[in-house]
């Protein structure tokens, strides 16, 4: 379990990193926390010519709170994010998702950007980003671009990042008024890849009806995605609606299968967790509305 020999590069700036990516013509892997890439290198599943260690790019470890969004540099450790009160208060869904990411020890090393770049179908951080309609910022010699998270994840471990690009940061919409957030997942053990993870952002209008809804599913198909819940906007934020939505969505998903779970079970978890998470989000939204 030793990697194939590779060139180890540790740039000090984003520009240097981009220069290196260009030099290796796409045959390079970027390492931040290394929690997934380290294992894949050691198992020789991937054999890049170079590994570019971006842990020296200190600017990418910043968190910036803006008017409508919070920006997190790609290198922000998961543990650091959890210890940043403004981020946790402004992006409640991320706060709910992060304790489910790996373990205490792995979160000290793992980064927000690394999880997004790896694009595991079960990963919590990509799911939260997709659910909130956040964005991924990428930089290349051609410049910077912001890619909507919902278009960034293309499939199993596959994203829209081009080989000459570095993910520099993520953009998280701040919490909105009258809006509730909820997250839940089921795994065989705490810290495992979720068999199914469900995230929701729901806005309840003054009439008690849903005015905006986003229901994200992870671990179900080959990428995190937002279910088509448009038909339910305007419905009351009740248990009956929550169950109705979850049952409807469960019939539309095409779940993956593995040792831990078959498709029927994943579909069942979409029903069960979907109803629970939606109701929790409705309740949270109602509480926010009443508090306001």
């Amino acid at each position: 379990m030793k990697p194939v020999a590779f060139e180890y590069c540790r740039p000090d700036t984003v520009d240097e990193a981009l220069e290196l990516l260009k030099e290796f013509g796409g045959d390079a892997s970027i390492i931040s926390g290394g929690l997934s890439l380290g294992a894949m290198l050691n198992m020789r599943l991937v054999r890049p010519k170079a590994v570019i260690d971006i842990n020296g790019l200190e600017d990418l470890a910043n968190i910036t709170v803006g008017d409508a969004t919070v920006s997190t540099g790609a290198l922000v450790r998961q543990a650091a994010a959890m210890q940043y009160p403004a981020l946790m208060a402004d992006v409640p869904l991320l706060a709910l998702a992060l304790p489910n990411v790996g373990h205490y020890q792995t979160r000290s090393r793992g980064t927000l950007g690394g999880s997004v770049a790896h694009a595991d179908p079960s990963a919590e951080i990509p799911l939260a980003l997709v659910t909130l309609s956040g964005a991924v910022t990428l930089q290349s010699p051609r410049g910077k671009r912001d890619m909507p998270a919902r278009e960034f994840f293309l499939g199993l471990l596959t994203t829209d990042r081009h080989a000459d690009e570095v993910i520099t940061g993520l953009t998280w919409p701040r919490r909105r008024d009258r809006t509730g957030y909820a997250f839940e997942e089921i795994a065989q053990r705490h810290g495992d890849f979720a068999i199914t993870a469900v995230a929701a952002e729901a806005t309840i209008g003054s009439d008690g009806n849903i005015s905006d809804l986003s229901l994200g599913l992870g671990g179900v198909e080959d990428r995190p995605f937002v279910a088509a819940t448009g038909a339910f906007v305007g419905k009351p934020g009740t248990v009956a609606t929550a169950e109705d939505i979850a049952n409807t969505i469960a019939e539309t998903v095409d779940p993956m299968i593995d040792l831990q779970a078959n498709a029927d079970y994943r579909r069942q978890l979409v029903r069960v967790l979907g109803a629970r998470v939606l109701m929790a989000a409705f309740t949270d939204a109602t509480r926010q509305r009443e508090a306001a």
Partner: protein
Amino acid sequence: MEPVPGIRHAAILRSSHAHARIISVDTSKAEALPGVYGVVTGADIADAINPIPSAVRVPIKFYPIAVDKVRYVGEPVAVIAAADRYIAEDAMELIEVEYESFPPVADPVAALQPGAALLHDDVGSNEVHHRTFRYGDPDAAFAKADKIVKLEWRYPRYSSTPMETYGIVANFERQPDRYTIWSNFQGPFILHALMTGALGVPGNRLRLITAPHSGGSFGIKQAMFPYMVLLAACSKLLGCPLKWIEDRLEHLIGASAAADRADRVEAAFSNDGELLGLKFDNIVNVGAYVRAPEPASVYRMHSASNGCYRVKDIFVENRLVVTNMTPIGLNRGYGGPQFYYALERVMEAGAKELGIDPAEIRRRNFIQPDEFPYEAPAGSIYDSGDYEAGLDQALELAAYDELKAARENARAAGKLFGIGMAAGIEPSGSNMAYVTLAQTPEERAKAGGRSGGLGSATVSIDPSGSVTVKTVSTPAGQGHQTVAAQVVADALGLRPDQIDVITEVDTLTSAWSLASGNYANRFSSVVVGAIADSAEKVAKKIKLIAAENLEVAPEDIELVGGEARVVGVPEKALPIRRVAAQTHWHPAGLPEGMDPGMFETTIMSPPMLEAPDQQDRVASAVTFGYVFDLAAVEIDRATGKIEIVKYVSVHDVGNVLNELVVEGQIYGGFAHGLGGALMEEFVYDAGANPQAGTFADYLCITAPEVPKVVIGHFNTPSPHNTLGAKGMGDGSSMLAPTAIANAAADALGTFDIVLPLTLNKTWSMANGLEYERAGAARAKTGERPQEAGAVQGGLTGKGSVELSAPPADVWNLLLDPDTLAAVIPGCEALEQVGDDSFTAEVVIGVAGIKGVYSAEIDLRNKIEPKSVRLVGKAAGALGFGAGEGRVTLEPLGDGRTRLSYSYRANVGGKVAAVGQRMLGTVTKILIGQFFRGFERRLKSSGDGGDQGPGFFRRLFGGGKP
């Protein structure tokens, strides 16, 4: 660890095939790589050493490396020695092995079928051991029974996965010719004799040195001895010391595990719940070879087949079967979990059938306190116990009546709530002779006597007066040092921190014997007794010297606070250090007849550990502890989650030597049992390909999953050692799987429970749904050798697409090589090699995990234009697969066609072992891409389909911008 200079680092090339003949091994490219010192193949080893002896007399040549055939995925094929492990692994990729595949045997019941492929041709069958045993008159007992209860099931294959893997440094030196091996081997040292047999040297020319801490073992580090032989032989062949550290991938596919079994039990009861007779039918999957000490796993509990009960009439049938899986070996509880899964579930099922409370039916059958020492029907002599008192304590700690009320309330509310229990004895300090039950009395007579379980310890005091204890116990974190120091300190009137405990073993210098090592709970049942006896001898000597110096009788001396002092006259005292030192400094001044020096060694073999008698009865262990476990669970019908509402575990460990150590052992044993009950399993598919090759798929239990255990003690001191202690440590690893299965059975209303009770399986059961684990091969429970059909299982899927052309067009295009070449994802070349046969080169890759695969596809059962069966296989650097699919075409009336497909495939190699959770998704993506391409081709418009071509180029072409 570098105990000698000039070490080279070894890597082991392992078979990715479950069953194949080795046609050739070409090591030339690997040997040419700079930094490579040499490569050793199976053929080299077969020339250099003898096969490793077996406990079973069958014509199987067991070498530590595959010689002519590979018989399990993970079997060593070649050893590379290089300047470092990185280079060694680079070289490993350059070795070219040509295989001829044979049909794999992936299931122990299927292995017994008449037409099954044979693992070992010389044996003529996959059954390598078969014995039956009859104690009392089981047929008469069953004839008079009011109720006969039968259960049958599969017990899963799992392990205890120690924190540290195998680690070996082997060195061969000349003058004298001697192999020295530094390792974290745990014993038993009877395996030393097997290793010298294989290496063809006398005992003193194989020096084994073990580490003071083995990094966890749980029995698994017994099974490293073939690797010790392998590395020793390679060191001699290559002329350099070799170091090999097993990595986790190697450990999970190639180390060892507890046996998976296909067992059946019948119990005869009277109407009032008396257990009259038992019949056990055990089929043990030993894996590819009968690696010593197998078949011991099925004999460890054998002579205690009555469990805690007075039942006298017992029938046992044991069959050992070889399959294309990793050989089994010692693992915590060794045979106990499987045994109690039979006995304690059939007791619970009997209680249910007879309408008797499960606690009550056990109470009615328990051996009574005044019956000890109790001679069990199959020969065990239970030393002491009060099983009913232990049960009462457990019921009290569980608040059993309240728990039953809670169950009624939960059920009234529509919930799934169950209570289950299990009672068992815990044999400790094994009689080496129980292994010989694998032979008939006649065979044993011919082979010569075997008996005993020697334990040894030395307590010495050096000229400066400091105390050292040496044991031969290879601890793995069980606190041997703590307990040994405490016992000696108590005997000598010193503080534990004044005692040094040496646990390293060196077979050239230690007082070791066959039974030495750390297994079978033998530390507190045997080794501590030897330590206490040695300490007592030292104390006696000190007292004699002090008595003479102080001019009193030896009986008047006590050892307290570092002094030998006259009882009742504390000021009349001598420092123990000074008294002890006198044996070195001034032997002439010692009492008349006393030997100089202070080295007291005790070698003991408990006298009851005799050889098996003509009726196959044997006292298999020294002490018999007792465990009573009670579990209450609630199962969430919606998710299948099993919540352990309460878990009570009451133990009789004899006198407790150290409370903290005992509690730690109880928790650890419980955690291992819980892992087996809920999630741990080495899954193999129908091609005998391991599917759980990393800790992402082999779900080792972790701390957050372990609930609080309410621990109780009800201790009856053992008469069999000085301290009255019994062995312990296996404990709930043997009973928790059964207690939890019984609780789940109570909740779900069926005893048809197959572990592990994963979330998905439990949910399926709770909702009356069929469950098939993706990737898992299993003949159904209940299939016996005569009934079982072909083993199924693997990756399955089905689906359908609507295509915009009539069936005839679809048919023609589907069988057209040009079309196939164009639409098969990643297809680089496709050739028609026969009427209905194709070969192809395909590049498949996801996120840089990319490989080139050579595929062969045959079309069969063609019914134009309706259906066709595709049979194919593919192989590449990252893995290989074989499978078949069926395609049917159905006209939709408007010139369109519905194409339906289903497939079943078995995938092996690295990609299956480490990437199991990705396989299903990748397959789906490939199929999706195929049909999108196919539809485009049908339309001949090349408009790109619903996903941009860039996506697939990136996904399967390699990710360049």
